[in-house]
């Protein structure tokens, strides 16, 4: 193996020392003015956001968060913060431009006064031309519950880099770009809002790739014998993610309310269906089922309240043929 680990950077024309900014492929020699080109990989531009928070502010934010939502009622008294420290997390930040066309149609059903339902196709051709921003964490987020950059504006400064532990980027540059392109197409297609697509074509240009180091405060606390973790945005002071104990009382109240309201909505729907034979009835039954399903989910899994982008987070998603329940209800157009 080579023992030459370092390459000195000098102007090939005049020999003067040059400085290269990461991510730039050209530079000018400041001595002789020659235009220089950097062949091979020289990384991406780096932005470091300055940490604006201190320990006390991070603790305060967590304690305020404890009181919100359906967390254990005694958390604010029993919870004990054991550790608070800042880290820098690496994020890929990629600017893209997506251009394309989406063609297709939307089906609209209308019911006239006699109860006849007619479905008509509304044809659509939608242009997509947008500049987008994509971000993704550049290391494994583990149990931090953070995946994308919390915000893109902040004071840039390298001065805290040495003081705050910095998580290293361990993912591939090209994978990040491929993901950014896929994300741009996905978002472009979504913005076109064509339910049934018969033709589409997208192009994505990558405008700018950079690495953002974002300050995040990690707060660990105990509740009974358990140890929980939460994170606070080091720029805005907002809570980013965290896990907290739930409360059986809230779980039980939720399912009681959900079964009663959901059951009555369904009952109302059935009655309407029998006596008027109207689609309103079906909507009532579906609404009842949704209320019931949502509260059941909270009853079953509400013993831990989770905020943030966790891989094991249990999402309530009821999708039928790719449409959510809410879409279905809207589609009925009562």
């Amino acid at each position, binding site marked *: 193996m080579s023992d030459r680990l370092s390459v000195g950077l000098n102007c090939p024309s005049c020999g003067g020392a040059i400085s290269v900014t990461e991510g730039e492929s050209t530079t000018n020699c400041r001595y002789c003015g020659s235009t220089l080109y950097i062949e091979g990989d020289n990384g991406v531009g780096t932005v470091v956001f300055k940490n604006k928070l201190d320990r006390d502010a991070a603790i305060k934010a967590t304690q305020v968060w404890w009181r919100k939502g359906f967390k254990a009622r005694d958390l604010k008294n029993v919870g004990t913060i054991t550790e608070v420290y800042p880290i820098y997390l690496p994020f890929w930040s990629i600017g893209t431009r997506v251009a394309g066309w989406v063609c297709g149609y939307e089906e609209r059903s209308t019911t006239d006064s006699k109860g006849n339902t007619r479905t008509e196709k509304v044809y659509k051709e939608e242009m997509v031309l947008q500049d987008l921003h994509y971000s993704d964490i550049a290391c494994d987020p583990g149990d931090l519950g953070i995946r994308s950059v919390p915000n893109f504006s902040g004071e840039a400064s390298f001065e805290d880099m040495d003081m705050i532990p910095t998580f290293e980027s361990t993912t591939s540059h090209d994978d990040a770009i491929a993901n950014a392109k896929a994300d741009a197409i996905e978002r472009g297609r979504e913005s076109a809002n064509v339910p049934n697509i018969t033709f589409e074509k997208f192009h994505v240009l990558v405008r700018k790739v950079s690495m953002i180091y974002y300050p995040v405060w990690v707060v660990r606390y105990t509740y009974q014998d*358990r140890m929980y973790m939460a994170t606070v945005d080091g720029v805005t002071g907002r809570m980013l993610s965290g896990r907290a104990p739930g409360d059986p009382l809230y779980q039980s109240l939720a399912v009681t309310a959900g079964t*009663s309201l959901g059951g009555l909505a369904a009952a109302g729907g059935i009655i309407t269906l029998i006596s008027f034979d109207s689609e309103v009835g079906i909507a009532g039954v579906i609404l009842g089922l949704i209320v019931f399903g949502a509260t059941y989910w909270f009853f*079953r899994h509400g013993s831990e309240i989770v905020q943030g982008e966790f891989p094991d987070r249990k999402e309530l998603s009821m999708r039928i043929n790719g449409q959510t329940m809410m879409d279905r209800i809207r589609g009925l157009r009562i």
Partner: protein
Amino acid sequence: MAEIKCPKCAGPVQFDAGTRFTKCSYCSSQIYIDRSGALFYYAIPFTLSESDAVGTFKRWAGGSTKAKDLDKLAKITKVAKKYFPLYMFRRLIDDREEVLLEPAASTVLPGLHQLKLPGGDLQIFDAQFNTSGAEMVQPDIAMTHYLTTLPGNAKEQSLVYFPIWELEYQFKGNTYHAVVDASSSEVFASTFPIRSSVAYIAVSIAGFFAFIGEGLLATVNLLAGTALMAVTVAAVFVASLYVARRL
């Protein structure tokens, strides 16, 4: 921090794990660090103490999918602090940069063969690195074993030690294993005692259909329907509270 010699003045230049460009502090010339031919040793520091790891395990064990009161009833029989080695290859394959992870030691521990490198502050692993008493799992798979078979050209290769707490616990006569990643607090377990949803579903479904029935009844006999609803509300509340607390 690692050290290299400045290619210009031969002065010692220190650099950190993520550095690509650095400046010589003696002659201030800019230096590019070429990692393609070298093997780096990195380690991620522990951010969880033993009690933190046990607490994190208990939080995980208290989750809604785990057996009720697993956090209280699990008897922890073994806690071990370890550094587990992983090879990280950054290679250029068909003009695309790819990061490949390969195990450097054979293991049966849960989570470690999923082959991911937990996020952390990579530090150069050398004689000065403080392993804080953790057992270093020795690499028993040579890097050359992978290097000869990997596609593309090397950009960087490293051996990364990542910190784990290995836990063994007993529950209802069975022994289970869990691994707590000591950098980002993630808990790995391949098998664990699970909680049945039967009681939750039973209470919810019974309540839901009771209300549908009572709702229909109320259109015929308002008084009877409302009275029954009041009883059902109380019953569902008490039953669900019992289920949420005890089952």
